[in-house]
């Protein structure tokens, strides 16, 4: 038995519990976002508009204050789970390495993405902490900050997907951490996130931070990505326990 290749593929129950947890974290993150971002928080579909005046922003958030406040708690919970989700993907890749490589790169992108997402949730929370006290343009800035961190960060979240894709494509033939189609899916995700970089230039229309192409598309694609990769992690954990 070649100790180099065989031992790094072994998975025991302890490992599989972690991998499955990574997958379920992803599912939980999606559900928590639907509650906190879609239903309560007004993040998607956007309650606010990039061309709203500061006064309009204050008015809109004040009208929905409590819902958004509760929503921001669900958002924090959702985004914190990006950490275990990402670590799950990295640990699966780690099994296919003798010396850590791509898994290390993925862990860093996981850390960066998770931290950024958490700041998004903090900004959203501060937006509704005391809008009556802050200068209205500061309330607007929290909204800008939240969307900018979420959307303008294409090299981070898109980069994360690229690292997952590369770890699949550079793997040995037939011995990949995730199926090859998942590699191509990850690359497609980068394309879907890319319009988010445009929000710098527009305050109206489909490329503004409330827009169809620059906001809806990346957000929805991102959570679909989490869903698919989570499904794969859970599937792998289950298959190997048989």
């Amino acid at each position, binding site marked *: 038995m070649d100790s180099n290749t065989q031992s790094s593929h072994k998975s025991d129950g302890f490992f599989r519990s972690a991998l499955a947890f990574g997958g379920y974290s992803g599912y939980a993150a999606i559900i928590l976002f639907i509650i906190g971002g879609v239903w309560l928080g007004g993040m998607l579909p956007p309650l606010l508009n990039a061309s709203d005046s500061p006064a309009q922003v204050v008015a809109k958030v004040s009208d929905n204050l409590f819902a958004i406040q509760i929503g921001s708690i669900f958002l924090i919970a959702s985004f914190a789970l990006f950490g275990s989700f990402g670590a799950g993907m990295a640990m699966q890749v780690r099994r296919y390495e003798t010396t850590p490589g791509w898994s290390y790169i993925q862990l860093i992108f996981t850390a960066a993405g998770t931290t950024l997402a958490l700041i998004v949730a903090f900004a959203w929370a501060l937006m509704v902490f005391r809008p009556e006290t802050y200068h209205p343009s500061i309330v607007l800035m929290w909204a800008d900050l939240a969307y900018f961190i979420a959307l303008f960060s294409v090299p981070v979240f898109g980069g994360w997907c690229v690292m997952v894709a590369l770890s699949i494509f550079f793997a040995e*033939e037939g011995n990949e951490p995730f199926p*090859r*189609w998942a*590699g*191509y*899916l990850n*690359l*497609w995700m980068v*394309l*879907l996130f*890319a*319009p988010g970089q*445009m929000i710098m*230039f*527009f305050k109206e*229309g*489909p*490329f503004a931070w409330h827009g169809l*192409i620059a906001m809806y598309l990346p957000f929805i694609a991102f959570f679909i990505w989490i869903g698919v990769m989570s499904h794969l992690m859970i599937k792998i954990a289950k298959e190997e326990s048989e």
Partner: protein
Amino acid sequence: MSGTSRPRAQVPGEIGIWAFVAGDLLVFSVFFILIAFGQKEMTDVFSTSRESLNLYFGLCNTLLLLTGSWFVAIGVERCRDGQGSDNARWFKLAIGCGLAFVLNKIFEWEAKIGAGFTPLTNDFFMYFFIFTGIHLLHVVVGVVVLIFLLKVSQRPTLNSRDIRTLESGGIFWHLVDLLWIMLFALLYLL
């Protein structure tokens, strides 16, 4: 050459790259439709703005990509059939076409911005800059892919996995070409 050519249907590259192509075509189809709606609803703005575009830049870019695709197609075919002495040169030529495209695009954008046209000028220029910009990103990625294919083509022997890599990478490059054909038609020629 060994073997006779049996017409056995075989997926060029691998099915994964075609899934990616499908995804990319889906996204760009939305872009094409947006341009068409813009043309329909704001015909005057679009037609006037289009006149500010320099057709020679667009034409040059189209010819560069078409020729680059031709080089890639030849290179992949020669590598697969094991004929030809320096197959790497086809990829070098294609990379040249890709880089020339990028340069040409930069000159074109500089000229436009210098003349006062930006993505904020009107909807035509918004679509023009953003969609050709996203396409330009594809070209840049495509050049990186071509560099990788160049390295593969220089290996002393190519196994079936190498051929699959060459074909898949080539298919991505042809996708980049294909997307430009429609963008060129919608933005420059209408």
